[in-house]
Structure formats: structure tokens, C-alpha cells
């Protein structure tokens, strides 16, 4: 158990001659909540697909528990950027598809209970029999999270799970993700374009430079104690300082530009609600 849970070493990826990622190095330990922030189109989803095993790197290697990954697997629960629920299945059926696949030796009843438990965890029991089209964006996202969690993966990969949602729903779901993480102590790798969201949720934030040939910058640890209250955090000087540091890094080194004067300039990030 001396290996870190996930390790990326010199990972690079190009599409049709265009270098999207170059020399990406990242180590995630068990139980850690790591957030990656970066510009739109920089290559965040590409990096996540590499970790998920849906793409394979051109250079470097990705190790899970010290072993190179060879493809997708249920040890990595993925919440895709656009939910990716199957529209012809109900909430229960969508989650059951995953559960039946991953726990084939369980009895029918055990699996049904497991599915119900995770639907309840994301507060969707009343909507269990609905299809995705009948749900709001926030509800769909919660189904996607429940599906990933129900697989009991070693690491949860979340690709901008909240960026398509309105500010209020976003806040609620951020609280929910934090609650679930505290409960389960799962390892989480969250991708977001919202620095404040990253600060609220993560133990450590890694910024991704802009394209092309994006690479990861240094880790910014978030030392603010948990549980983090959104209201209180809003006035916390540590948040403001960290936010400024990360934004500065992204806008200067991240964009490969000389230092900006105006430190107040912000990334696409929204204020903490």
C-alpha cells in the first residue's frame, strides 16, 4: 500500500497533430480531494478521459495503485460533463445498470437496496421512477453522481459536474458533494472552472495552463478547516488570498504572459454564493 492511489507521469496527448496536453504530472493519495481548475478548452476533459481509460496517452504513463491502467474500469467512477444518463431508462434503472454490472454476485434484493440507498443519498427518492427528460439539470447531475458512487469506485472523477447549473442549485450540490465526501472519505478528482468552488471543496488545487500543450502547475493546498461553511468562507481572508494567488498564476504563467498588474482580475469563476 506504499503506492499513491493515482499517479500521472509525463502524460502527453495530441489530437490530429495538435498537442493538447504535455508532460502532465500529478499524484493523488487515498482519501484526498483534489480539484483541477483551468480555462475552457484547455484539455481538462481530455485529461479526465485519460485517467478514466477512455483515451490512452501518447507519452508517459498513468498508474492506479502502482499499476498502469489499460482501459476503463469500475474502479474509477466517472461523472461526465454532460451527465450521460441513458434517456430511455428511469433514475433507478440508470443506476441499476451500473450496480448489476459491478455486483453480479449479489442477490436481486441486495442490488435493489444498494440502488435505493444511493438514490436516497442524493435526495432523489421521489424521482426514482422518472426518466432523465423529466428531471431538472441539477437532478440529472445528482443521478450521475449517485451512479458513480454506487459503483463504489476507488476514485471519483468529476468533470465540471456543476458548471451547467444555476448559482443556487450549484451551491446546494456543492454542499451535497462535500457531505458525501465527508461521509465516504472517497478519493475525489474534481474538474472545475470555478476557483471558489475548488477552494470550497478541495484539499488541494492544481491549475492547468491554457492551450495548447497544457500542463499542470504547482499544487495550491487549501488549509481552511472543514466543514467549510459557504457563508463564512465568503468573508474569509484566506479564501481571498488563495483565490488571488490561483487566478494570478492562471492569468500569468497559465497563459504564458508577463505578470498582470491588476491582481483583482478574475477567471471565469463566480463569487461564492
Amino acid at each position, binding site marked *: 500500500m506504499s503506492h499513491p492511489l493515482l499517479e500521472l507521469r509525463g502524460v502527453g496527448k495530441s489530437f490530429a497533430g495538435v498537442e493538447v496536453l504535455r508532460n502532465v504530472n500529478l499524484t493523488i493519495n487515498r482519501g484526498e480531494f483534489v480539484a483541477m481548475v483551468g480555462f475552457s478548452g484547455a484539455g481538462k476533459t481530455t485529461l479526465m478521459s485519460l485517467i478514466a481509460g*477512455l483515451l490512452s496517452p501518447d507519452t508517459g504513463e498513468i498508474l492506479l495503485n502502482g499499476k498502469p491502467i489499460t482501459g*476503463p*474500469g*469500475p474502479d474509477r*467512477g466517472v461523472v*461526465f460533463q454532460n451527465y*450521460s444518463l*441513458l*434517456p430511455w431508462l428511469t433514475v433507478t434503472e440508470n443506476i441499476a445498470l451500473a450496480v448489476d*454490472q459491478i455486483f453480479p454476485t449479489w442477490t436481486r434484493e441486495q442490488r435493489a437496496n444498494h440502488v435505493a440507498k444511493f438514490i436516497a443519498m442524493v435526495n432523489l427518492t421521489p424521482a426514482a421512477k422518472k426518466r432523465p427528460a423529466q428531471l431538472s439539470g441539477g437532478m440529472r447531475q445528482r443521478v450521475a453522481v449517485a451512479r458513480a458512487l454506487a459503483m463504489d469506485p476507488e476514485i471519483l472523477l468529476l468533470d465540471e459536474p456543476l458548471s451547467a447549473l444555476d448559482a443556487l442549485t450549484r451551491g446546494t450540490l456543492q454542499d451535497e458533494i462535500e457531505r458525501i465526501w465527508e461521509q465516504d472519505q472517497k478519493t475525489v478528482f474534481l474538474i472545475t472552472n470555478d476557483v471558489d468552488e475548488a477552494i470550497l471543496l478541495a484539499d488541494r488545487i492544481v491549475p492547468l495552463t491554457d492551450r495548447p500543450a497544457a500542463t499542470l502547475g504547482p499544487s495550491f493546498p487549501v488549509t481552511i478547516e472543514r466543514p467549510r461553511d459557504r457563508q463564512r468562507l465568503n468573508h474569509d481572508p484566506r479564501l481571498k488570498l488563495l483565490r488571488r494567488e490561483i487566478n494570478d498564476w492562471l492569468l500569468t504563467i497559465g497563459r504564458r504572459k508577463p505578470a498582470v498588474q491588476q491582481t483583482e482580475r478574475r477567471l471565469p469563476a463566480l463569487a461564492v454564493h
Partner: protein
Amino acid sequence: MNDRRFAFDWLILPLLGVVACLILWSLSSATWAPKLPSPWKTWEMSRVYVVEPFAKRGELDQGILRFTWYSLILVAKGYFLSLLIATPLGFLLGMSKMLTRTFDPVIQFLKPVSPLAWLPLGLVLFGKSEPAAIFTIALCSMWPTVVNTAMGVRAIPQDYLNVAKVLQLSRWKLLWKVMIPATLPYMFTGFRLSLGIAWLVIVAAEMLTGVPGVGGFLWQEYNSLIYEHILLCILTIGLVGFILDRLMSVIEARFKTA
């Protein structure tokens, strides 16, 4: 208010269209086409076939719905054979670029061949008229299903396939739980178009082979110089085709929302 608007759009206007057609028909038969029976004459002569739609007075003298029924049964046989071949074929073409490149030219080449051309070949191959008709229907009507199913398979969002990959679904589960449901709306569009063609073909097939049915009846009455019955058959064929298309649309719409 809304109801009246609806009645106007969906009842009054279509009825006006029908009336306009009847007037044109009457005028034509009264002026430049003296051999064309007038609507009234057509009705008079056809009455017995319509009022007793299931009567069987003789092999070639039966109620119009009885003839229609024979035709529908034959269509059903050819149509199901066609779907049985076309759906898997469409899936294979949709999944493999190589197969598409190999067979697309052949399909484009076979698609426009008229049923009138296939039928004699069917007669040569099978010797009897019913299998020849089924063969022709199947061959002519399968293309929309092949093409639409393949298109549907190609249009399956990458997201769904990614979900399947992350869950490591078996090929069998991938097919039944993801690919077929995702393709169903396209498949049903194909099924509907195929049924339209199958119905189109049956009439031609019956006319050439003399199998009893609406088409066979039409041809026989032409030979007996009872032109009113030609019109009766045309109207019946049109109406049945319309109803089949509506029924398929209803089924298709159900899958669209899913």
C-alpha cells in the same frame, strides 16, 4: 377558440381538399376524359363491394376489404422478412466503416431497381407467384430500414458508449441496453418508410402475378373493362396506405419521446 382553430385546420381544410378533388374528377369525366367514370357512377358500381366488404361471391368477386386483407397478409409476410434482414444489416453497416464502404455502393445501386424488375427474377427463382411477391416486397422495402438503422447507430452519442465502456458492459449488454434503445427512433423511421414501400410493391406484384388481392382485382377489372372498380381499388389502396403510415407514425412518436 382553440378547438375551432383545430377543427378548421384538421377537418375543414382537408375536407375542402377532398371536395376540390372530387369536383376536378367530375369535371374531367364530363369533359376531356369521357372514359373516366364519374364519382357517382363509381360509387354506384362499387357499392356492393363496399357495403358487403367481406363477402365472397367467387374467387375473383369478393368484398373490397376481403381483397385488402389478402393483400395485407402478403405484405406482412414480405415486410417482416424485410425487417428481419434489414435491421441486423443496418446495425452491421452502422458499426463498421469498412462494411459501409464495401456495401454502400451496392445498396445505392440496388435501391432504385423497380419492383417490376425484381418480380420476374423472383418468379424464375421460386417458380410460384406468392414467394416471388414476398421476395420482391422484401427486396424493395428493406433499404429505408437498412439506411436509417445504420444512420441511427452512427448517431449514438459518444457519451452513451463511454458509459458502457466505464461499466465494462459485455457486447451483448452493450447491444441490448445501449445501442438498440439509442437507435430505436431511427429504426422506426426506417420501419415506417419500409412499410410504405411494401404496400406500394404489393399492388404491382399482384398485378403481375394475378394473386387475389386489391392489385389483382384492379388488373382483372381493367381486363373486364369495369373502370369504376379501378377507381375503387385506387381509393382503397390510398386509404390503406394512409392508415398504415399513420399507425406507424404513432408508434414512431412513442419512441421519439423515450
